[in-house]
């Protein structure tokens, strides 16, 4: 199969599917966009792994930017090795690599056939959801570094960050799934064995009846002791903090129901309420699992360590020594290679730094730094190698210090904020009141009926309906929002979102897109032919400005350059048949070293400077409409690290009442949020870069904007895909509806409770009534919550 040729004459790279500039790079009748892609194809072809290309069309990862040869030299360091590997003996080593490039079944096929590329690999198993590969290799045949390099050579560069140096991630807690399994098993069987009792078993079959009762008793024990554990633990925790949460009355109800039923069975007076008890536990666990369903592929807990590399080259006596990041001391000289992150604040001592701070500020256009200037940690060098002299340790640098603030030290978090706990507390007090009155009444009139009556009250009137409506509504709303690419950290976030009074936006990367720039040409007009030449030249370079420029002009035809050269930190030069073209910085193209503001690319044809392409931030589409809607109900602010150049535009966009602050450093942003909170505001912060991380954390609800959910986002309460940002107002409305739905179903559950209590206070709640009331109330509440939340979502067109 040859490379596909599109109708417009473009050829797609057989490996990665990108448009090829020409058909010069080919192998075995296939055309590639770059040497890198071709190389991967040849490796796979040699090992007979070309099924990779048959499973999916153009499944590869673009290889235009090759990974530096000795990038993984640090994996030979034994200390680092020990931190990364999960198990080893004399022969084998087990390691799990995170491979973010994984995206299709071809990837799966290739990665699980790794042993054919590197015979030292004993086995490799992929977990696609987590994008991880568990690899076992033989120590005497290959090394950790070689395995990482094999993966890199076929386009799956393992992502190893400083975060991997920390303690191992805890295993996923599946205990609640086990618990619901046990509860479901017991519930089903007890229901079945309660039928004879409800259907009126013949009095002559007394022995059989007893067998059924004791079997139910036995089946209910694991539910009491194991399945209901989460409720005991949670209520115990909250009681320790002198707080009555919703789990406390539930745990009480479960225990009382069991004791009462056990008493009945042992004394031979009745069958007990085992079916109701196990059913409640089962439904409530189901609600809780639905609500706690997490997005495992996303991480809300990222700090700077997930962004930073694990090791970096330190120069010592002009030799490169890979050093683990925590071992870097002030005074060391670091060699930062092209496309590497600067891990510590330092002074630039050699080379021209062209630093992309998009991780930090959301601004994607690189910043030029000259020798002797300070460079801050978190930036990515984009052109050529540089050397920096470290002035601060990694943990002490400007950015990382933000995370080490005392306010952010995790405390044992106990969820006391939800209004559901408040409701359940009133409910519990009223319940205790009714129980006390009933007790007094029967004590005076017929003492024998006092205990049956009291226990019945607790059995029938636990706030499980409230619990169910809350968890199921939350679960459904989380699901609806997730479908719309807004991922919340947990259910509490729904409520917090509905309660926000103040919305704070970051500008760069949030209101504006980091993917797109507005480009305006100023100067001597260019002919269409010249424009095409500029586009063709820019297309040759990987520099973000060139890419943006090429995209902006839109190349329509192919132009051959007889010569092409890229000058790091300066620009690019190409020669066509007629003349030479230069694109690049003012100093390089015009020879004019004077200072000018903003980002521009200058153009020169031959010896004549034509003009410049000015780059400015591009506001996301539909942002004005969103702001217009939000400003009616919320106080809005915009925090920007930039200068005041766009103040007017923004003020027009946000209205007179909005606060606009410029020149904001990360701490300033955090302080501003704090200031709003002290005034009693509930603050929703929406940001994207690491410089917003402090503010996101400080705010009541921090939403991180991501161009792609696979990308890294600062730790936050929610992650939203950039394209969905324009629908934020509707998401907030849905979250607000959450509360109304819960209250409505709570009212409904009160009706059921009153019916149940009517029987209970008289002391004649039969197991049959309990068995009918319990599932019917649960089911109708589930229908109400699911139905109404889905209906509201549909109304909001979500």
């Amino acid at each position, binding site marked *: 199969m040859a490379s596909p040729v599109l109708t417009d004459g473009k050829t797609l790279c057989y490996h990665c599917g990108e448009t090829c500039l020409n058909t010069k790079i080919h192998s*075995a*009748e296939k055309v590639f966009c770059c040497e890198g892609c071709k190389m991967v194809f040849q490796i796979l*072809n*040699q090992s*007979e*792994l*070309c*099924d990779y290309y*048959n499973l999916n069309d153009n499944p590869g990862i673009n290889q235009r930017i090759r990974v530096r040869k000795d990038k993984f030299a640090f994996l030979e360091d034994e200390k680092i090795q020990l931190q990364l590997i999960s198990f080893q003996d004399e022969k084998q080593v087990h390691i799990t690599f995170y491979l973010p490039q994984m995206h299709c*079944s071809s990837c*799966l*096929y290739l990665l*699980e056939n790794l042993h054919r590329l590197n015979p030292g690999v004993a086995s490799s198993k*992929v*977990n*696609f*959801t*987590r994008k991880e590969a568990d690899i076992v290799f033989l120590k005497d045949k290959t090394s950790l570094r070689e395995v990482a390099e094999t993966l890199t050579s076929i386009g799956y560069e393992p992502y190893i960050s400083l975060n991997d140096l920390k303690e191992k991630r805890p295993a*996923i807690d*599946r205990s609640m*799934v*086990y618990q619901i*399994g*046990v509860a479901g*098993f017991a519930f*089903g*069987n007890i229901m*079945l*064995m309660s039928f004879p009792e409800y259907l009126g078993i013949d009095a002559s*079959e007394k*022995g*059989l009846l007893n*067998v*059924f009762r004791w*079997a139910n008793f036995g089946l209910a024990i694991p539910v009491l002791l194991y399945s209901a554990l989460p409720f005991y633990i949670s209520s115990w925790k909250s009681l320790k903090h002198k707080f009555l949460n919703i789990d406390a009355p539930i745990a009480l109800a479960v225990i009382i129901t069991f004791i009462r039923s056990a008493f009945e069975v042992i004394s031979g007076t009745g069958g007990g309420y085992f079916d109701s008890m196990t059913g409640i536990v089962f439904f409530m666990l189901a609600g809780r699992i639905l609500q706690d369903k997490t997005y495992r592929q996303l991480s809300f807990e990222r700090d700077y360590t997930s962004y930073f590399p694990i090791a970096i080259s330190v120069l010592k006596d002009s030799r490169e020594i890979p050093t683990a990041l925590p071992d870097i001391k002030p005074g060391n000289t670091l060699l930062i290679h092209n496309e590497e992150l600067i891990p510590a604040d330092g002074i630039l001592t050699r080379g021209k730094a062209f630093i992309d701070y998009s991780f930090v500020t959301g601004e994607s256009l690189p910043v030029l730094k000259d020798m002797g200037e300070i460079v801050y940690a978190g930036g990515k060098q984009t052109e050529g190698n540089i050397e920096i002299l470290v002035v601060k340790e990694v943990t002490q640098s400007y950015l990382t210090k933000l995370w080490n603030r005392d306010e952010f030290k995790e405390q044992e978090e106990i969820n006391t904020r939800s209004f559901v706990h408040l409701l359940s507390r009133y409910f519990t007090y009223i319940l205790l009141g009714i129980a006390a009155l009933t007790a007094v009444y029967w004590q005076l009139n017929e003492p024998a009926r006092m205990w049956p009556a009291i226990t019945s009250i607790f059995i029938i009137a636990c706030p499980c309906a409230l619990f169910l409506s809350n968890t199921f509504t939350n679960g459904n709303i989380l699901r609806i929002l997730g479908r719309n690419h807004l991922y919340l950290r947990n259910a509490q976030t729904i409520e917090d979102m509905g309660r926000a009074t103040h919305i704070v936006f970051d500008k760069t990367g949030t209101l504006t897109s980091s993917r797109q720039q507005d480009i305006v040409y100023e100067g001597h007009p260019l002919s269409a032919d010249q424009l095409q030449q500029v586009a063709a030249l820019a297309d040759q370079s990987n520099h973000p400005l060139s890419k943006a420029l090429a995209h902006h002009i839109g190349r329509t035809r192919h132009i051959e350059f007889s010569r092409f050269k890229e000058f790091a930190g300066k620009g690019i030069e190409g020669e066509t048949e007629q003349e030479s073209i230069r694109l690049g910085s003012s100093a390089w193209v015009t020879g004019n070293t004077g200072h000018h503001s903003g980002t521009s690319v200058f153009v020169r044809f031959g010896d004549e400077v034509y003009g410049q392409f000015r780059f400015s931030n591009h506001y996301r589409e539909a942002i004005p409409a969103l702001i217009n809607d939000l400003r009616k109900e919320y106080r809005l602010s915009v925090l920007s690290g930039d200068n005041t150049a766009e103040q007017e535009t923004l003020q027009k966009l946000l209205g007179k009442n909005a606060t606009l602050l410029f020149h904001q450093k990360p701490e300033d942003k955090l302080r501003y949020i704090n200031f709003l909170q002290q005034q009693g505001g509930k603050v929703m912060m929406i940001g994207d870069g690491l410089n917003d991380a402090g503010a996101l954390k400080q705010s009541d609800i921090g939403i991180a904007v991501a161009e792609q959910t696979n990308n890294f986002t600062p730790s936050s309460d929610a992650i939203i895909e950039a394209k969905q940002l324009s629908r934020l107002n509707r998401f907030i409305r849905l979250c607000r509806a959450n509360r109304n739905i819960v209250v409505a179903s709570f009212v409904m559950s009160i009706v059921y409770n009153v019916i149940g209590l009517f029987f209970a206070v008289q002391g004649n709640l039969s197991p049959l009534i309990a068995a009918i009331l319990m599932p019917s109330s649960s089911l109708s509440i589930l229908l109400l919550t699911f139905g109404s939340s889905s209906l509201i979502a549909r109304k909001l067109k979500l």
Partner: protein
Amino acid sequence: MSVIIILMIASISIAALFLVAFLWGVKSGQFEDDFSPSSRILFDDKPAPTKTV
């Protein structure tokens, strides 16, 4: 009467068997990754030689 007891034991044991199967399935991570196993089964152990020179 004793027949019912035997039936009861049989039904509970079968249900218990399913419970154990479920717990084992969860524990061995069968519900973790719903993409790879379904694709993996479609790969041939030894793919036909696709080498093109």
